[in-house]
């Protein structure tokens, strides 16, 4: 009946310093665009893209920071219920790499501990201006138990791969969880999560 047209729904959240290309990555993936200049679209909260992986429809809900990272003021609620985090830095900006531990601290504090984190070094089209070597980033991501990828939102390098690989991992994770966690179905008398209050026939 009202079962929507997808097999999985995942919330993916982007974080990282301002200017590293988060908005461009989202726009590139969802709309196939690389916007010149500032990419923030006023009034767009999250982007949706449905992809098909091995015959299954996966709906990705991709959330951008809404610029709150600019003065280090991301709301905690932004991290809640995210299935995956894309932690982005700019390979041409040492500073954006050096801030990663700070971002990890925030993740540890506010995100679910089941969240999958991917480290992304963006702007590889600017190879001549690279400040962070691939090896350094690989070592860092290994130490932090993160998956690592380098991308260019501008040239569309690895952008598709980033999101699709992530979707695959999310699917296998979700499968494992339903196998293990059958117990976690709501108990009788337990309150119901109402994630979208708009669902109700009032309005």
């Amino acid at each position: 009946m009202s079962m929507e047209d997808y097999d999985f729904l995942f919330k993916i959240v982007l974080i990282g310093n301002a200017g590293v290309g988060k908005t461009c990555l989202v726009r590139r993936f969802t709309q196939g665009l690389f916007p010149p200049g500032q990419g923030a679209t006023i009034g767009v909260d999250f982007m949706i893209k449905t992809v098909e992986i091995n015959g299954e429809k996966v709906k990705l809900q991709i959330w951008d920071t809404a610029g709150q990272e600019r003065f280090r003021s991301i709301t905690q609620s932004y991290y809640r219920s995210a299935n995956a985090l894309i932690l982005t830095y700019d390979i041409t900006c040492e500073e954006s790499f050096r801030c990663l531990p700070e971002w990890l601290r925030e993740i540890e504090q506010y995100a679910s501990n089941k969240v999958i984190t991917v480290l992304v070094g963006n702007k590889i089209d600017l190879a001549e201006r690279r400040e962070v070597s691939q090896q350094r980033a690989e070592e860092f991501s290994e130490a932090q138990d993160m998956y690592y990828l380098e991308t260019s939102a501008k040239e569309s390098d690895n952008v598709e791969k980033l999101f699709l690989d992530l979707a695959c991992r999310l699917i296998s994770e979700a499968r494992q969880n339903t196998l293990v966690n059958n117990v976690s179905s709501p108990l009788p008398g337990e309150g119901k999560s109402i994630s979208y209050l708009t669902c109700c026939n009032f309005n």
Partner: protein
Amino acid sequence: MADNLPTEFDVVIIGTGLPESILAAACSRSGHRVLHVDSRSYYGGNWASFSFSGLLSWLKEYQQNGDTEEETAAAWQDLIHETEEAIALCKKDETIQHTEVFCYASQNSGDSVHEIGALQKNASSVASSTFTEPLPSAELPEERHSYVTNNEMPAKHASESDSKISVEEGDVEESPEKEKYCGDKTCIHPGSDGDKVENKPIVDDDNNQLKRNVITYHQMVQESRRFNIDLVSKLLYSQGSLIDLLIKSNVSHYAEFKNVTRILAFREGKVEQVPCSRADVFNSKELTMVEKRVLMKFLTFCLDYEQHPGEYQDFQQCLFSEFLKTKKLTPNLQHFILHSIAMTSESSCTTLDGLKATKNFLQCLGRFGNTPFLFPLYGQGEIPQCFCRMCAVFGGIYCLRHTIQCLVVDKESRRCKAVIDRFGQRINADYFIVEDSYLNKETCSDVQYKQISRAVLITDQSILKADSDQQISILIVPPVEPGASSVRVIELCSSTMTCMKDTYLVHLTCESSKTAREDLESVVKKLFTPLTETEVDKEELRKPSLLWALYFNMRDSSGVSRSSYCGLPCNVYVCSGPDSGLGSEHAVKLAETMFQEIFPSEEFCPPPPNPEDIIFDGDDKQADAPGTHTTTVANLESPEESKKLESPLQS
């Protein structure tokens, strides 16, 4: 990141409490350039929620009470021109007073030893094989590491099966989760060296695994982030203005809610569940058939009492409590209706108000579930943040840890034209919205504030045990002396994401007449016993144990009229802090009224375009999709379909 703040805005908002955040969202949504700042490092001001450690540092700040380390702020006096004057803002928050903390959970190694002793007495074979002889206290803890592979649910595992526990001297199995969860901050390596103080928490873990539910202080600190402890304790009325606003503005997308599952009453020293839906009434084991019939009849009458004026006309001006006495309702039913359903006062509520409140309650019942209330997952503190996100999505700029030193007023026009921040940066705007606590003493010299008394308790079991241990309950405890304020008790379980497993978070709230402890301690004592006094033998009968308790008073600026603030320019608007009411209707109304005053012709928080409605075509498929994947570029549902219609749960 060493980015400079822009300096031209339409609206500058100082403070990130609920009314300010709603206003920020409304202004930004309406196309105005908004700067929203808070001098604190967190969102929400007195509407915030904290992790356990976060709450401890919050407390420290108020307990230090002396001069907070005065940051080297740029001098602003020189930046004021001759045609201007400045109104300095408050440097120190004075809205919280009389904080008192009590920890009953085990904190030191001496206690651990005691616990282990107690455990040997009554806990099973699990322990007896390894806990042979008491060792000198200092050594004991480190000898007793036990690890369950999944460290998230120690207590449950322990009671489930012995075999899952390895209690072996010196043999420590640390699960990978454990390692990861601890991160680098609190990681406790249960190494073999016997004299490290840091090892204690591990030992405490052991005790809990064996002795069910006895949570230690160290565990609470270790699981700190599982807690989201609200400074104000509120619920959302399922037909209230906050729910309506959340839905209308789509801000509801940012949060999740749970239904409050039970309405409780406290009568003759006992906690009971109040039946409030039709099904509850019928299924109640406590009520007799006659009581059920009388209650149903009365509630059915309340749903459309206006149609039956004859029933209550003669009592309109009388007290509701007197009216109830004439309705053949037994005393317990009268209590339920008066205190738990209408939630009114015995000594002051008129019949008409009581009927109105009862009807309102009944009408709210069926919307989302079995009781008329909702609670946001992760705590009330999420709500202001959700509105802030909405503001940011529409271009609002956010800056926490940003102190504003003064308002700059143009002498001639008597309008505020700018603020000066702590870097000496001038930021211009047309309108300024300031939360009450940021105003200085002179501005507030004529203001009389009320106070709210609050207690926050961490306990080990529910005040009313039931089949499910995941209940969200509200209980109104009527005042002992007439005229005093009733105490609202809200008990949250761990599935609300506000407290760690095997604990409950209990919030008490009332209007202050004295300090919070003086106002609330008697109710706390009626409902709970300190952990140390718990008699382990009477497991079944015992009251829930207190593990930790905090009392504090919070300023209630909700009743202050604008005219009582001295010397504020007309384009400076003041938002109040939290009020003591159960809902957030006051904050919503304040924000809406203020918005309409500032922008009279604009709509307040209209729905934004639904992101789900943004449709991308299937044509721009990327050619470089990896082999195993087929990419179908979003083919989204039509707008109608994407709004799942779900009928509200009927009671």
